């Protein structure tokens, strides 16, 4: 019994320490700019929603948020559309090359983004893709594609083969088999994969910071703009950050187990 409470104390202390910076950000978002920088730090204060109002009133905030939503959803949809047929093919009609292809797909993830920054920047400039949503969607979908394929592949393989073979006996074409049997059966797996992809695209910073400036800039770029010296508005920064973080954090909490599976490329189930 004693050890149980000692464990609980250790666990809660560790959890509190890890979560504290986020809690502090959340609290600060309800302070005025003056209480936000008060020394000693204000623990008890009159909460205000002014910061949220101020952030939401900014005309450009809506645009940054819309860009984030469009880019995250667009990249995820494109990646799913390309990955589902491939994962289906590899899970149910494996050939001698399947293992090699899977490993090769994983290997594309090993290419550090910074190694190809220059050519991508020049190509995007050449084709007018700089600072466009479609430009970011293309990059993001290609960079999550290996993870999406791997996750779908591992979910599809859990679908009993007999079900698909029975459909085939009944004369279903591969297309019908895919759309009317496999996809409905693996809906939870596809949802988890989509969530993971949305989270990764939402938080993506390297390409957003380097390839967008204003028109297609996402919330990662917006929050980064608070790093300039004249942008020392902590309460507003906190409010903007809380708004940008909260939905994704909730998605992350929901899909934490799938995250382990997707990001370890099946090494952990």
């Amino acid at each position, binding site marked *: 019994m004693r050890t149980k409470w000692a464990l609980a104390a250790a666990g809660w202390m560790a959890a509190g320490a890890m979560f504290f910076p*986020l809690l502090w950000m959340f609290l600060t978002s309800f302070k005025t700019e003056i209480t936000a920088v008060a020394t000693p*730090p204000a623990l008890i204060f009159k909460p205000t929603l002014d910061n949220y109002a101020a952030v939401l009133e900014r005309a450009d905030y809506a645009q940054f948020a819309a860009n984030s939503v469009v880019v995250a959803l667009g990249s995820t949809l494109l990646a799913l559309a390309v990955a589902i047929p491939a994962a289906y093919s590899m899970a149910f009609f494996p050939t001698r090359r399947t293992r090699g292809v899977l490993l090769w*797909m994983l290997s594309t993830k090993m290419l550090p983004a910074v190694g*190809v920054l220059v050519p991508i920047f020049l190509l995007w400039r050449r084709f007018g893709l700089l600072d466009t949503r479609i430009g970011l969607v293309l990059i993001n*979908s290609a960079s999550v*594609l290996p993870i999406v394929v791997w996750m779908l592949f591992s979910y599809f393989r859990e679908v009993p083969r007999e079900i698909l073979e029975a459909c085939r006996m009944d004369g279903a074409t591969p297309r019908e088999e895919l759309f009317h049997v496999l996809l409905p059966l693996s809906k939870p797996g596809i949802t988890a994969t989509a969530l993971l992809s949305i989270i990764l695209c939402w938080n993506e910073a390297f390409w957003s910071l380097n390839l967008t400036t204003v028109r297609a800039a996402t919330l990662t770029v917006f929050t980064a703009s608070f790093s300039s010296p004249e942008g020392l508005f902590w309460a507003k920064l906190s409010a903007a950050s809380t708004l940008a*973080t909260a939905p*994704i954090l909730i998605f992350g909490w929901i899909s934490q187990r799938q995250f382990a599976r997707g990001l370890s490329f099946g090494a*952990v189930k």
Partner: protein
Amino acid sequence: MTRQRHRVRTGPLMTPAVGMLLVWMIVPLLMTLWFSAQRYNLLDPGGTAFAGLENYRDLVTGRALWVAMGNTLLLVGAVLAITLAGGTLLAVLLDREFPGRNICRLLVIAPFFVMPTVSALVWKNMLMNPVFGLIAWITRSLGLGAPDFFATAPLAAIILIVAWEWTPFAVLILLPALQSLSKEQREAARMDGAGAAAMFLHVELPHLRRPMAVVAMIETIFFLSLFAEIYVTTAGGPGLASTNLAYLIFQDALFEWDVGLASAGGVVAIALANVVAIFLMRVVGRTLEAER
């Protein structure tokens, strides 16, 4: 049965995914290699000329590459050590039964889902600011003075931030791995008289070896391209003190507009990543085989 299976042509199913990745990987890779052998500056209207190994020579003889390389390796090494040690401890802790364990688990993994620009700014402004920051207030109250992290130890400050972001990732992978350890295995160890320490050293730790290798390698790949945290906190400074390879290439490319030099840096980064990748592929390949 086999006759039926042959009717499915896998080519059209695979082509979009394979094609997309092929273009995404091969085209920029070849371009980086090509540019790295060119004298090519976007500010110079003279166009391009073949430079051979000139860019590499400039890189290797300059100081910046070596400083950046050292910073990169230090950053990767330090964050790996902290996240693996911290992640293992937290995973072992959260694997035990105690009241509120599931809530603790959610709180511990939360930092991983926060966008890197937000994490870095929260730490830089609200926690580590030498005047108004919370840490400065605590150390001042203890009579220790207020440290200016980003001026005196910028790399250490960035290591701390990145470790905070990625320790949850280690927990995310290691905790399920630990929970897959069967009750029988633990029971057997307990029957043999293993205490908590022996259980950790001889049962849990060996079981975590492969997931830990996976965590280490995935983190390494991400850390080699670490950018946003440096971009919003120190911008690589003071001087080159917190410039890593990724930030150096970014500066060469988008400040100096020196395409040739930046590309040569890119090739170095790719070579570094490849060393890690070879090991990662081997581990994951083995997992694939073990499943069959």
